């Protein structure tokens, strides 16, 4: 699904990723670890197609519409409500039975009560949950998750654990995280960036 050869990415003079080789097949789970600034987010952004490689080659054999990307930022409009944000993405991703799917996700992640509130009023944890809803909305084949546990409280983290367990083996995942212990049992491959 993902194939990288001597992949590198520079930002101006600063080289963030260097000479990376990677092969990831379907239904695998790649765990990416490394300190801050090691290029985890950059790698995910490259796989999502938001950045182009500056060195080497990268091939992601998945259509744009089948990729789910969870970034550092929730990528939602602060002035729109949770419902409006998900409806927007639902339409753009042509999600079938959009309303039901949105309702189901909001319910599952404990946001149903706040669905008509503006994201600006959400706590960090709630925003992260909404971001997860956004990522999972269209049932993507490839999930790129950048620090998915960041900002989540215990109940939220438990929900995410359950979700990951359900997804591992069903979909392909690339997960970047600071504290890998939760994910290690699910990982089929590991990549440690320096």
């Amino acid at each position: 699904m993902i194939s990288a050869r001597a992949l590198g990415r520079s930002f101006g003079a600063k080289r963030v990723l260097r000479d990376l080789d990677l092969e990831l097949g379907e239904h695998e789970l790649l765990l990416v670890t490394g300190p801050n600034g090691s290029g985890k987010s950059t790698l995910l952004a490259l796989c999502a197609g938001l950045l182009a490689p500056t060195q080497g080659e990268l091939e992601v054999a998945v259509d744009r519409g089948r990729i789910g990307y969870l970034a550092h930022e929730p990528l939602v409009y602060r002035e729109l409500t949770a419902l409006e944000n998900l409806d927007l993405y639902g339409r753009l991703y042509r999600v079938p039975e959009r309303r039901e799917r949105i309702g189901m996700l909001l319910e599952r992640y404990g946001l149903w009560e706040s669905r008509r509130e503006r994201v600006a009023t959400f706590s960090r944890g709630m925003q992260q949950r909404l971001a997860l809803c956004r990522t999972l909305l269209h049932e993507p084949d490839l999930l790129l998750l950048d620090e998915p546990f960041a900002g989540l409280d215990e109940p939220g983290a438990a929900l995410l654990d359950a979700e990951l367990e359900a997804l591992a083996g069903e979909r392909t995942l690339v997960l970047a995280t600071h504290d890998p212990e939760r994910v290690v049992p699910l990982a089929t491959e590991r990549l440690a960036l320096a």
Partner: protein
Amino acid sequence: MSYLADVGTLARKDLLLELRSRDTVPAMLLFVVSTLVVFNFALPAGASDEAAYGLLWAALVFTAILGLTRAFAAEREQRVLDGLVLAPADRSAIWLGKAIAVVAFLALAEVVALPAFALFFEPVGWELVAAVALASVGLAVVGTLLAAMAAASRARELLLPLLFLPLVIPIVVGGVGASIADDPGRYLGFLALYDLIFAILSWASFEYVVTE
């Protein structure tokens, strides 16, 4: 056609955002009227009637810049643009939806500016209204693309006017011409031509401005 549906979704989103935050349009309204008042003091006593029309067009262009500076503000602040770009929708739909919203905001500003102009300076004929309508399309079409470029830069608000002004000189010519010339039709035709050419160019190249 799902493309038009996407454009509709995105345009509706932009209008809704403005309705919620109400920061761009009121500023544009106040700005255009303030500018017209400043121009009253800027015009010397013996200035021709026609000079006022020129100043109207200057006011409209600068008001457009004000509005366009905010065009991608929400997308930039929360990096939502990444989310939109990743969607399977055609990227040009982002541009078109946004441009439609910008035209709407400009139209609202003009609904206030034209009567104010008629009150303070000179009468407003149908040619002027037609020119303003055509010019708004041109300003929005080019401005939306440039606003996306500026949003991706470090200089942001500073960069947009620099990129924008040389490109809209033809619009000013067309607009002023339609306002004061004996044969406004030529100038209106020119504005329409400008709109067509730059709409196509912006539509086709927006993809390359927001992706790598």
